């Protein structure tokens, strides 16, 4: 249909316009204003990309009329739907279909099509026209061509400090402008202090710099700041935006969890000046390095910072997929500044990242055994790294040595008791082993369902039938069989043994039962000791059918703090079988086994790292349950009988007895001389397990020591980190990005048009990190120096720091960007050195005043003919106030803290905010607890991001809510109050104002300002004197108590003065 209209449109066009179209007047006018040289990358590509690629770009499925305008071959080729025409005919407008279409006003013919809502401006049309006239030269996108070392341009008659200035000043001169003179020392010191440490200079620091007459006075300050421990904090603040670091999970209930160890690693790494190459390699692949350390593994928390969901109804695989996508997208944005996430559902519309490329990249981040739904009981989602304190490390080491000792002792005793065993045989005491069926020693519970759910070992205990979490009892369904009765299950109602079967990971135990598994059953639990299938992210142990295979898990938190074994073969169905689980208390997979009809079941171990206990340690400890679980698939139409639970690992022979494959009769009727070798082994096993009191005592001692180990481990801090699965998970290209729509399998690889993955690299995250830092990678170093640049200059050299692709802005100084990128790489990715280079440049040191000529010619300061000037960031605004009043708590690192915050904010997601009450509240803002769904208003109002996803460039807005924060937030009133008190110590108000003004703004007030503020102080003093009730709010806000002997009216008046300065431009803006 559409085609039909196109053809008609085309025919009409032929009649209406003949061949040569007239260039509209406004386009002709715009044409005259164009620069002499039209550059493809700078002028043309942005237009083609933004206005044409949606239908004629890299996305194969969306290409209309078979035309691509992102590559020359296609653009110059004959048009399939317009025979004899080409879209672009170099040097010939009239033969270029593109030309006719962009100037047409015919809705059926014009381009872009009206329904796209995209419009070309006259200037854009003119550019395309001139470009075609000049030969329509295509060039590769600048960002995908590796940077080349550029010649440092010459600059005449200007003082340059380093090559940055050569690049910047030469361009300024070309544009007919002049660089600005250097900023005043006060302004410069405040600028560089805030930029390098996030903190303002103190009065002492200001005076030292102002009085330093040496030639390198500024450089000394720069070195001092680069070596300050607060440098790392400032650098980390930006990095944490990029790494989406937060203190909460981010979805629904949004509980908090502590990832501060990662944050502190970032601070420390910047302070130690870890090379950027190692800095990002550790974060991407610290666990896969040839020699990983605790520190490099901590760094991998980078890839676990993403939000995670604990909502009850979520679908496990949906969110597992979402987490991997988050990592993939973050990788693209943080290190490549390419929005790879766009290729989740389809080929990227603007950049050379196909949908297949996306899933290839995704596969690097997919090999981690993690849960989609996180636990309801605040266990850290696995995999995790244990982070014992020094003290805990000692305790653990001690207990480990004790366990070793007890294990040795047990072996020793068993050996030593050989003679005792021989006597026991000789005296034929084995004849006393009861041979009436079921082994009785250490039997904790036995349920035969003959008449009820009672435990025949202990009459006081009684099982019940339950559904969901109801405590109400349901009716059991008994069925007759040849031996009496068994229990029939429907998959929803389950048998709860109440207080039977509660074992810790240090307890040996056995569970035996008869069961009948229906043929249809492919998924569902047979028995478990836990609260629910997934909601507690599985804690306890269970035996289930999973994907038609029998599976057994024992876990602190599944899937990675656990033992999981899967049966290798099929399990008999539609017939009664006997199943026994035994566990030796070792926390190891080889100590956890299953037996079917008395024979060991061959199983594959898929996880063997259980490092914390398997119980909840609370009053409502769940017991052993059979046939179903809360919100999980049950043992539908299954049958159960004769459940026996033991407080020890049964011997293999006893397991056979349970399965009715054997009994003691054959042995107990024999004389000792008649016993075979095999029978002696069987008896020895039994003797060791049940008879010898010394062995039993040694085993109990070992069990106790193991329990101590569990107790000592339980509260050791954990950090979510990356851990590669032994067998890589299969990755598929997902149709439309949907977790449940896999198409074809894909393998680790990187987008080849950015830079192909070298064949010699491992196809894992470590290989990916090497690809990223390979000198042939065109993006990494450029992206990194651009991030650093925007810290100092407000905007990056590429303003769209998050997007170096076709839709991003062109670099304002491409040659400089490339020079810096190479310089950075060749310096060994030395971050401090690069920072120093930038802040030492004359470009950075310029005054930021705007001449009207510069404002007219360059309102956005792209040319950098003046110094940078920006509003303080959210963190700086608060830290500046705390520093100025002298109350800042400079403690570095540790858990996040809870500052003043209006009451009740966290109530919308049912959580409590408990404000700190010590000097913790005066810590730096980067340590403020960051709850993703309810951000701290002091920071959020000043554009602090919610850290739900990677952010490399913050907004900088200006709203009335910001005014309310600095006027009325207790943090700022308190700071003003402390300064108000301090002012009372000065002999006269002028010097008091002078001092507070310097502390807050880093500059000296002029006479007019001092006079104005002195006036304010007097009028406020009169106000407070005559209305003492007006003082209250000013002096009683915040934890800080002022000196009671001072005149409260005076303190309050001073406080208002300090608050006024704090709210003024000189405080809020970094000039």
């Amino acid at each position, binding site marked *: 249909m559409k085609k039909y209209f196109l053809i008609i449109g085309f025919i009409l066009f032929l009649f209406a316009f003949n061949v040569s179209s007239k260039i509209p007047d406004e386009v002709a006018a715009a044409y005259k204003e164009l620069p002499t040289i039209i550059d493809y990358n700078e002028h043309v590509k942005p237009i083609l990309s933004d206005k044409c690629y949606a239908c004629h770009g890299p996305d194969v499925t969306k290409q209309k009329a078979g035309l691509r305008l992102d590559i020359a071959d296609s653009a110059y080729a004959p048009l399939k739907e317009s025979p004899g025409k080409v879209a672009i005919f170099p040097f010939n407008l009239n033969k270029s279909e593109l030309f006719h279409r962009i100037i047409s006003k015919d809705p059926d013919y014009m381009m872009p099509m009206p329904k796209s809502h995209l419009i070309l401006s006259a200037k854009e049309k003119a550019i395309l026209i001139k470009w075609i006239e000049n030969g329509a030269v295509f060039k590769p996108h600048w960002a995908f061509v590796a940077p080349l070392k550029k010649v440092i341009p010459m600059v005449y008659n200007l003082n340059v400090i380093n090559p940055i200035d050569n690049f910047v000043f030469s361009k300024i001169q070309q544009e007919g402008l002049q660089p600005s003179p250097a900023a005043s020392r006060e302004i410069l010191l405040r600028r560089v202090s805030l930029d390098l440490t996030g903190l303002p200079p103190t009065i002492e620091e200001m005076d030292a710099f102002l009085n330093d007459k040496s030639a390198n006075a500024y450089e000394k300050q720069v070195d001092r700041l680069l070596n300050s421990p607060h440098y790392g904090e400032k650098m980390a603040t930006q990095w944490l935006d990029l790494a989406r670091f937060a203190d909460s999970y981010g979805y629904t209930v949004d509980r908090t969890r502590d990832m501060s160890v990662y944050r502190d690693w970032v601070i420390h790494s910047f302070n130690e000046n870890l090379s950027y190459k190692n800095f990002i390699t550790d974060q991407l692949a610290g666990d896969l390095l040839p020699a990983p350390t605790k520190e490099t593994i901590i760094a991998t928390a980078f890839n676990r910072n993403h939000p995670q969901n604990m909502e009850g109804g979520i679908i496990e695989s949906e969110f597992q997929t979402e987490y991997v996508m988050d990592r993939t997208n973050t990788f693209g944005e943080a290190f490549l500044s390419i929005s790879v996430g766009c290729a989740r559902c389809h080929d990227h519309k603007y950049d050379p990242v196909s949908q297949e490329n996306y899933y290839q990249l995704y596969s690097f981040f997919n090999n981690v055994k993690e849960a989609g739904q996180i636990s309801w009981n605040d266990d850290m989602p696995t995999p995790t790294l244990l982070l014992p304190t020094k003290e805990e490390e000692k305790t653990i080491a001690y207990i480990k040595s004790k366990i070793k000792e007890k294990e040795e002792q047990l072996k020793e005793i068993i050996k030593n008791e050989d003679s005792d065993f021989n006597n026991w045989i000789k005296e034929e005491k084995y004849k006393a082993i009861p041979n009436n069926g079921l082994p009785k020693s250490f039997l904790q519970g036995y349920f035969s369902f003959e008449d009820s759910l009672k435990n025949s070992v202990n009459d006081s205990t009684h099982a019940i039938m339950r559904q969901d979490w109801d405590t109400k009892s349901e009716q059991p369904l008994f069925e007759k069989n040849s031996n009496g009765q068994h229990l029939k299950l429907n998959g929803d109602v389950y048998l709860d043994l109440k207080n039977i079967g509660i074992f810790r990971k240090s307890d040996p135990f056995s569970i035996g039962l008869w069961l009948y598994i229906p043929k249809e059953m492919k998924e569902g639990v047979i028995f478990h000791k836990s609260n629910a299938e997934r909601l507690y992210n599985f804690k306890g142990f269970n035996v289930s059918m999973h994907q038609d295979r029998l599976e057994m898990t024992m876990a602190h938190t599944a899937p990675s703090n656990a033992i999981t074994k899967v049966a290798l073969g099929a399990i008999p169905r539609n017939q009664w079988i006997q199943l026994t689980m035994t566990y030796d208390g070792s926390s190891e997979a080889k100590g956890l086994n299953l037996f079917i009809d008395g024979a060991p079941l061959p199983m594959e171990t898929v996880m063997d790292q259980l490092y914390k206990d398997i119980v909840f340690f609370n009053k409502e400890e769940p017991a052993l349950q059979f046939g179903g679980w809360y*919100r999980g698939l049950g043992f539908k139409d299954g049958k159960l009988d004769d459940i026996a639970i033991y407080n020890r690992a049964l011997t293999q022979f006893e397991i056979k007895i349970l399965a009715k494959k054997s009994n003691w009769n054959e042995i107990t009727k024999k004389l000792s001389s008649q016993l075979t070798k095999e029978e002696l082994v069987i008896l020895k096993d039994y003797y060791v397990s049940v008879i010898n009191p010394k062995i039993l005592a040694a085993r109990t001692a070992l069990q106790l020591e193991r329990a101590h180990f569990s107790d000592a481990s339980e509260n050791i801090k954990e950090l979510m980190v990356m851990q590669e699965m032994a067998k890589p998970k299969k990755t598929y290209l997902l149709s439309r990005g949907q977790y449940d729509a896999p198409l074809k399998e894909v393998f680790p690889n990187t987008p080849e048009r950015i830079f192909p993955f070298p064949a010699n690299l491992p196809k894992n995250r470590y290989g990916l990190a090497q690809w990223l830092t390979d000198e042939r990678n065109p993006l990494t170093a450029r992206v990194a120096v651009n991030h650093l640049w925007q810290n100092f200059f407000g905007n990056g050299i590429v303003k769209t720091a998050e997007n170096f692709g076709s839709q991003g802005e062109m670099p304002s100084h491409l040659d400089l960007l490339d020079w810096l990128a190479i310089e950075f790489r060749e310096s060994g990715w030395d971050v401090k050195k690069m920072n120093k280079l930038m802040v030492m440049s004359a470009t950075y040191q310029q005054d930021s005043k705007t001449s009207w000529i510069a404002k007219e010619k360059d309102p956005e300061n792209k040319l950098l003919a003046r110094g940078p000037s920006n509003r303080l960031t959210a963190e700086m605004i608060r830290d500046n106030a705390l520093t100025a009043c002298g109350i800042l708590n400079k403690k570095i690192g540790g858990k996040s803290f809870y500052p003043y915050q209006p009451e009740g904010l966290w109530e919308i997601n049912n959580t409590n905010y408990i404000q700190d009450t010590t000097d913790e509240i005066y810590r730096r803002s980067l340590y403020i607890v960051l709850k993703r769904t309810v951000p701290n208003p002091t920071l959020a109002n000043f554009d602090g991001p919610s850290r739900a996803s990677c952010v490399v460039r913050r907004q900088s807005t200006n709203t009335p809510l910001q005014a309310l924060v600095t006027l009325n937030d207790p943090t700022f009133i308190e700071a003003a109050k402390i300064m108000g008190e301090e002012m009372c110590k000065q002999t006269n108000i002028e010097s008091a104002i002078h001092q507070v003004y310097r502390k807050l703004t880093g500059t000296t007030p002029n006479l007019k300002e001092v006079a104005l503020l002195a006036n304010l102080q007097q009028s406020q003093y009169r106000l407070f004197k005559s209305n003492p009730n007006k003082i209250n709010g000013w002096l009683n806000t915040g934890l800080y108590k002022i000196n009671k002997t001072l005149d409260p009216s005076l303190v309050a008046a001073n406080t208002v003065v300090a608050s006024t300065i704090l709210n003024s431009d000189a405080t809020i803006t970094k000039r």
Partner: protein
Amino acid sequence: MGHEPDFKLHHPDFDELNKRLERRDFLKKTAGGLGALALGTLLSSSISSKTFEQQILEALPTIAPKAKRVLYLFMSGGPSQFETFDYKPMLSSMLGKGLPESVRNGQRLTGMSANQSKLPIAPSFCDFKQYGKSKTWVSDLLPYTAEVVDELCIIKSMYTEQINHDPALTFFQTGHQLPGRPSIGSWLSYGLGTENKNLPAFIVLVSKNASRDQPLYARLWGNGFLPSQHQGVQFRAGNDPVLFLNNPAGYDGKDRKEMLHYLNKLNELQNDVWGDPEVEARMSQYELAFRMQTSVPDVMDTANETEEVFELYGPESRDKGSYASNCILARKLLEKDVRFVQLYHQGWDHHGSLPQGIKQQCKQTDQPTAALIMDLKRRGMLEDTLVIWGGEFGRTVYSQGKLDKDNYGRDHHPRCFTMWMAGAGVKPGITYGATDDFSYNIIKKPVHVHDFQATLLHIMGLNHENLVYKYQGRRFRLTDVSGKVIKEILT
């Protein structure tokens, strides 16, 4: 479409548009309006390569707007359609029978009931009757709503793609299931600006008396990647209705005015050096903040409402922060021409004990909701105010967990649910769309969340395909890549 400074369309349909253009022009020229302030900030720090002005102008109404304001009553948790509006008499004889596979048709279930061995049908415990001239079926739990049913346009064929609260709520409010996009109110603020220069364009109220079964998150009224002046501002019951609105205790408005006067002078002195327009922009923000300090407590104060109004809104209406009280407050905000007011009432997530739970929810919300409709109508405001009622998804026909005649639960159901709209732009007294006998599938006129959003924007005079913001190289819109206006419900 280029908008020249004197751009005008000379047709009566466009009178409203012309008024807006004049106002916008005025805002651009004065320092006091939000438009100018935003302009000041954005010219220097716009995320997009376009200026704010260009973006606003591109998004200007090309459709004559029907509504000036929106009131969105968000019933968080997913109210059951079976106990409210979607009458399914056939189910009464099917208590406990399994849901036929032909109806479910392999559609996915949540992790909460996917593992049930059986999906037993739970007929509604409610009685339904027909009300009004429109003879609309309404449950006996909503007697007050039943009285105003001729004002409502009930959509029974809503559907969403999300099956769990967080993604579903986020999808409804931002058009995308993952965090990070602007909410509906932010888009409206961005697209239309504010009519009241003393109050934010987008205000959020959260009932304090709801049972908080499912949490809310500030991102539901967040500005996403839009400039932050478009964020929703939560007005809270209590002494500090807007965060940090109150001056230090004892220091009154007059005192603050005096202090701000000095602050202005100080800024002027400082700016003598810099000549930075940003300073002027910030000073205007302080003025606006000051005006909010006066106007917000004023609008929050319901003491001057008449006895009759409190009667109308019901017994809880004097209890500040309750749903009923928030309804009165919402009406007051609308009277002040606040562009978008959104009330959140939690507590509709009835996985178990649904009858008891939903009775309570309806008791809290039915009378005040109906009162709002009547109140707006008699004040002549229903003509240019669009009212919306609904949650993030519906509930299943089958019981989650155990089923008794009088006690059951229902799981999340995204495949169909009921919402209603009333007032400006929508036909009153109609029902749109229909579901099958099990209210499991839509059989007539499905309305996707993006369709609903497109329709809402259309009623406000905005083309959902035009209201875009370029971020990270891509043009984003509320309706993502789909959505169509439901023309049949429009007046």
